[in-house]
């Protein structure tokens, strides 16, 4: 079996998803960020609700901001969060 991916949630996604982080095996059919978000939405109403509006969702793979077409691989650290509001 290949390595799981580590999923991190920040800001209001934590409360909506109900997780801070989790490790999940990457399904064979998931190859990119879009596919991952799609698959996550099917995992339960909390995920479906949290990831409903992708215009307010940003994704970082291995600590780099990426677009929906970015590939995901076993072992990746994948963070999902709203647009940043620091400074």
């Amino acid at each position, binding site marked *: 079996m290949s390595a799981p991916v580590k999923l991190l949630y920040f800001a209001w996604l934590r409360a909506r998803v109900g997780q801070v982080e989790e490790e999940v095996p990457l399904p064979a059919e998931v190859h990119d960020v879009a596919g991952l978000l799609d698959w996550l939405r099917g995992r339960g109403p909390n995920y479906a609700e949290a990831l409903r509006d992708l215009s307010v969702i940003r994704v970082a793979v291995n600590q780099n901001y990426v677009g929906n077409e970015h590939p995901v691989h076993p072992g990746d650290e994948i963070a999902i969060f709203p647009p940043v*509001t620091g400074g």
Partner: protein
Amino acid sequence: MIRVQREDFDTGKELERLSAGDHTIGGVASFVGLVRDLGGPDQVSALSLEHYPGMTEKKLAEIEAEANRRWPLSASLVIHRYGRLEPGDRIVLVATASPHREAALAACHFLIDWLKTDAPFWKSEETPEGERWVEACAEDDAATRRWR
């Protein structure tokens, strides 16, 4: 230099340290971000700043390196706090030192604009109705696009 910390910082000491011993520096520009309390019905009693440890430092270091590529800086510093902060508290310090005034001023402006849209921090406000996550602002995106 990059620092991500819960503790407050001493602006005067940090600015002093930035230029100490280097007499080729002609100017030090800085920006300090403070927690605002705008009053009114939405009165904010405190902010909570969450960040993405690891990625925060990485992004801030990238932003600082980019500023150093664009302008001839003698030294630069970014300190960003996280955790619970009250109105009037310091959130962030950006400081740049250069032989040339324009370089220090432009790089400081660039760093705070860029940091606002690229550093993985999220603010939530304590309001009488409970926690409320601050929404990203289009103005900040526009400010950063100016530098692209």
